[in-house]
């Protein structure tokens, strides 16, 4: 009898360990999410509005003539950031894999450093670099390479630079972890069998690294879909993303229902991207 009680207690222990975080998620994620769903179908005004569910804000997303376009712009921005992170991050992760422990640690610190600094400080620093009177433009003009300042800021390019800077680490770290699982013997075997370094890279290293690249790219894409402050500072009013529209609806227009519906749509799009990424990862690893 005592043995059975002990067994029962042991089987309960993992659930007890889970309880604090489960409660936290329930209170601060699931409940607010449920409230968001309710708000998204609640008419903004009118008598008995709480009883009369409506889908007008979801319909407005596609039919108001602008929000769908802004979603496409946001998807384009997330794609550009993901692409630039891949282009910059892949060689970096490869170098880290081959570097010694000290160099590897130094690179990792540099890659992670944007996450340790304030978003405001980071973006203001970029303003000083990319602005019309910034370091790059004044430098190029002083060298006589350009006559007029290049438009590096307050456009999609400026936002891509600012977001890539901070999210590069989210691509490099999983990619690096994925690359370290590749058995060096596979590359050595290819080299021994006469494959050139490029051929070895293309047919061995590159073909074995997609799971890490997909995981990293998904993280970057999903985070960029929700990024707010960097587009506001680096894009000013010249770049508009869906999170900016949702924030404006809440802060300036007090349209909670419309904002909630748009947020749910954004959440569904992100969920769709993550589902597609999970499917791709499974395909690549089987």
């Amino acid at each position, binding site marked *: 009898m005592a043995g059975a009680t002990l067994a029962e207690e042991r089987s309960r222990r993992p659930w007890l360990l889970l309880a604090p975080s489960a409660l936290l998620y329930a209170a601060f994620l699931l409940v607010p999410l449920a409230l968001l769903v309710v708000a998204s179908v609640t008419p903004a005004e009118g008598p008995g509005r709480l009883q009369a569910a409506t889908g007008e804000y979801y319909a407005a997303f596609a039919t*108001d*003539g*602008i*929000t769908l*376009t*802004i979603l496409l*712009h946001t998807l384009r921005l997330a794609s550009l950031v993901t692409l630039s992170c891949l282009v910059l991050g892949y060689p970096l992760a490869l170098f880290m894999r081959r570097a010694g422990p000290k160099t590897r640690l130094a690179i990792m610190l540099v890659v992670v450093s944007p996450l340790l600094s304030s978003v405001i400080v980071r973006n203001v620093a970029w303003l000083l670099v990319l*602005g*019309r*009177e910034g370091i790059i433009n004044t430098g190029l003009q002083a060298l006589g390479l350009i006559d007029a300042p290049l*438009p590096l*800021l*307050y*456009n999609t390019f400026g936002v891509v630079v600012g977001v890539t800077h901070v999210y590069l680490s989210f691509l490099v770290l999983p990619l690096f972890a994925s690359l370290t699982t590749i058995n060096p013997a596979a590359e050595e075997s290819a080299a021994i069998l006469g494959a050139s370094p490029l051929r070895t890279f293309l047919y061995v290293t590159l073909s074995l690294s997609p799971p890490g690249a997909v995981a990293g790219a998904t993280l970057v894409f999903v985070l960029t879909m929700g990024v707010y402050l960097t587009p506001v500072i680096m894009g*000013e*009013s*010249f770049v*508009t993303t869906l999170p900016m*529209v949702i924030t*404006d*609806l809440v802060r*300036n*227009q007090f*349209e909670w229902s*419309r904002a909630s519906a748009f947020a749910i749509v954004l959440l569904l799009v992100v969920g769709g991207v993550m589902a597609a990424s999970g499917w791709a990862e499974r395909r690549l690893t089987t």
Partner: protein
Amino acid sequence: MPKPSASTPLSGSGAQAEQLLRTEEAWITPLWNGRVYTLQEQSVPVDFVAPAEGMFVRSDPFCIPRGARNPALAKKCINYICGAPRQSGLAQALFYASPSRQVTYTPETARKVVVANQADFKRAVPEDYNLILDQTGAWRRRWNAWKVA
């Protein structure tokens, strides 16, 4: 020059809009007139105009919340700020006129801060907040559509 070259609707202090005009990132923007004169002092080729259709006249009120702990001190503070010497200083340093008739300006300051006469004020359009609140969403969508076009 990025396109479009019109800056964000004026909000907050207008510091960012001023910066965009200074660096020529924006060519047109709503902006407090005092900030325009600050730019002119820095030799930025910029001026402000009131649309022919009319303009808003806005005052900056001081408010003492009901139940405030020290309303007498708050009133004293407001009286101090609204006194002629401070208002004159405000006009001289930041180029904002005072509603107080007791405030006098030097001829140079007067040229900048006295930007309207009684006839101009008759053209002023009262801010209809019911209309503004009703239309903000539609106006925002038009603004966003214009930006992403």
